[in-house]
Each structure stands twice: as structure tokens, then as C-alpha cells.
């Protein structure tokens, strides 16, 4: 199965003194490397990594990219709305289970991560690894 990796990186250009560009890039690369390792696990379908100005999508089945991106955005929106309504504070993780797959959504710094996996995959170990 060919793997399509879409990287929609948009560089911000200006950096403040206390956060050198190299460090930020390194941080993103760390998360991406970690996600790549997780994606190699059995049952993990792919991931979406969103930052304020960029997004990286790596899904095994490229035809599903849009569906998954829309679903992930909608899940984040719905979770935000529910967290606010029920005064849950900051949501550490969100798990959406569909008929055939499961999505783990979490926020790490300024990054929003969505990991797509089959339902039998243990999402808690993935969460611990990412958190």
C-alpha cells in the first residue's frame, strides 16, 4: 500500500529571541518522528498533526484524507463545545469511536494531534507515549 504523506508547512518567518527557529522546528520534528513510530504499529491507520500555521497529514489510505480531516476537525469542535458547556476544564484527550475505527485526539503545546486507528488498538498506550 503506497503511503502518501502530505506536508502543508507554512513558515511564519519571524521568530522571537527567546524561541529560536531551530528549536521550534526540532520540536515539531520530534512529534512527527514519534507519530511516525506510532503509525508503524499494527492497526494504526495514520495521523494528522495540526499547528497554528501548518498541518501534516499521514494516512495510509489517501482517499480517506478529507473524510478523516473533516471528522477530526468536527470532533475537536464538538469536544470543545461540550467541555465548555459542562465546565470540564482543558480536555487532555478525546476518544471518538466509530463503527470500524477509533480516533485519539490530544493537544500537545500548540499542536493538535489526531491519531486514527482500528478499534482493537490500545489508545491509552499511544496517549501515554504522546503525552
Amino acid at each position, binding site marked *: 500500500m503506497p503511503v502518501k504523506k502530505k506536508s502543508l508547512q507554512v513558515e511564519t518567518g519571524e521568530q522571537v529571541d527567546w524561541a529560536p527557529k531551530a528549536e521550534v522546528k526540532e520540536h515539531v520534528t520530534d512529534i512527527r518522528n514519534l507519530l511516525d513510530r506510532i503509525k508503524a504499529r499494527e492497526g494504526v491507520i495514520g495521523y494528522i498533526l495540526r499547528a497554528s500555521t501548518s498541518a501534516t497529514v499521514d494516512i495510509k489510505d489517501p482517499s480517506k484524507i478529507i473524510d478523516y480531516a*473533516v471528522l477530526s476537525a468536527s470532533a475537536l469542535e464538538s469536544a470543545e463545545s461540550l467541555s465548555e*458547556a459542562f465546565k470540564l*476544564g482543558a480536555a487532555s484527550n478525546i476518544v471518538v469511536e466509530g463503527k470500524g475505527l477509533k480516533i485519539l485526539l490530544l493537544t500537545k503545546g500548540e499542536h493538535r494531534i489526531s491519531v486514527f486507528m482500528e478499534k482493537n488498538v490500545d489508545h491509552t498506550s499511544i496517549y501515554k507515549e504522546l503525552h
Partner: protein
Amino acid sequence: MNEEMYATALKTALAEIQNVCPDINQTFVLMDNGTIVSGDGQAIDPHIERAINSVQSLAEKALSVGGLDDLLIDGDEGKVYVSQFNGMYSVMALSKHADLPFLRTVTGIILPTILKVLNGIGSETALPTPLKSAPIVPPTPQFRPTLSEPLAKDEEVEETVEESEEEAEETLPPEPLETREAETEAETEVEPPRERIDLPSQQLIVDKFGGLMVRADNVQIDFEILERWSSLLDVKEIQEVDIETFSGKKTRCKAKVISDQKFEGRGLIRIPEKTCEALGLKRGELIRVKPVLPEER
């Protein structure tokens, strides 16, 4: 059994679940017609209402992955657990350390069982409110005597159709008693569709769909239903249908066959979102659909 009774029964069930699981702070059920039932019977805060409605939107998006089963939000000060049962969603606000496996077991048993019992009672009493989970499509026969008559010749069929139409026009106000009886029976009984030679109508469950290339005047219906109508009316194909909501709103749309296999054979009519909005329809509602004869157009 009407919607109000379902809501009352669900409210009682939610209250009982809350008694069993003290970790639950608030409980709600989002019914398949968009109604929200609160476990404590109190008025629902608009923020909460909006948030719960966002679950419906998420469920629509999740259709691309086979539908939404569960949603768990783990926050710093609590959790929200959303679970699907019989096409509805239970929404529970929980304390931070709630026992989720226990809760899943309790809700997974109690709510579907109650719905099953309600459906059982509903099928025995008059005027059931069909749920999304029961895709049974009762027909609404209009002229009882023609029901059992076989379709012998095409000419006879045409004649009878014309006669029926004339009769219908002449006797429209008041409606014949027999017609009313037949309609009531059709609503109370759950039985497979029967052949008729008058203009058939069918109650179908609304499902919304949208997209960039979707025309607002195109609806999607099961191939079997369209085929049955075309053979019944002896026309090559049914190109248009009349839609009538139970609030009395009507519109005419082009009829297409359901394109997505997973929606086939479930007694659904897939209506574009814009048309649903115009007719004030929500997903899961029941509407009456009639084919349009070519000469009617």
C-alpha cells in the same frame, strides 16, 4: 406510543442510571429527531443544548467512517461520555474518576432494553412513533377493496387508477370512513408493503445529505420502492415524487436511486440539507412520499 411517552420513559431511565452510578453529574438523551431529554427533568441550559446538538453534527461527519458509536472527553475537572444506542445518543457529564466500564455496561443494557420494551408496547397500541432503529415502512393504502385484487391486465390497472383518482377528487371532503380506517390500520400495523393499484404513497424516514454538487430538488429513494411504484403504475420509471411532511408542508422533487449502498433497504429517503431546512425536517422524521405520474407533471 407518542414521542412524549418515549421522552418520559427515557427521563425515568436516566434518573435510575444516575442513582446507580453516583459519578454521573448530568444526563441527557439526544433523540433521533433532535429532541433533547434531560435526566433531571429541568430546563436545559442553551449552552448545553448547543453542545449536545454539536454531537449530531459530529455524527453526520462520522457517517464516512461508519457512524459514531462513542465519544469520550477527558477534561481536567471531569469527563463527558457520549454513547450511541438505537440511533440516539446518551450524553453524560461525569466526575473525573468515574468508573467508565461500569457505566458503559449499565447504559449499554438499560437504555436499549427500555427502548425495546417501549417499541413492543408501541406496536400493540395506536399511533407508534417510529424510531430510526426500526426501519419498517408501513404503506398507507387508500382503497381497501383493491388491496387483494391481483393485477391481471394493464388496461384494467389504468382504468382503476383513473377511477380511483376521480373518486378521490369527488369524495375528498369528507374523507371516506373506509379510507380513514385503512390509514389508521396502516399506521398501527407493522406489515410488509402490499400491492395496490391506486396511487401509492409510502412513509419514509428522512436522512439528510449534502455536498457541493448536490441539487436541492433531488431526493434519493430505494431502488425497490421506485421499481415497485413504476410497475404498479405501469410507467417506465418514476421521475418525480411528492413529499408531504406531517406538518403539512409539500414539495415536489426529482427521484433518484440511493447511491450509497449502506443506506439501501432501510426505508430511508435521503433529502438534501437545503430542502430539509425549507421543509423544517430533521433526520429521523417520518414523511409521506408519493410518486408523480408523468401526466401529472
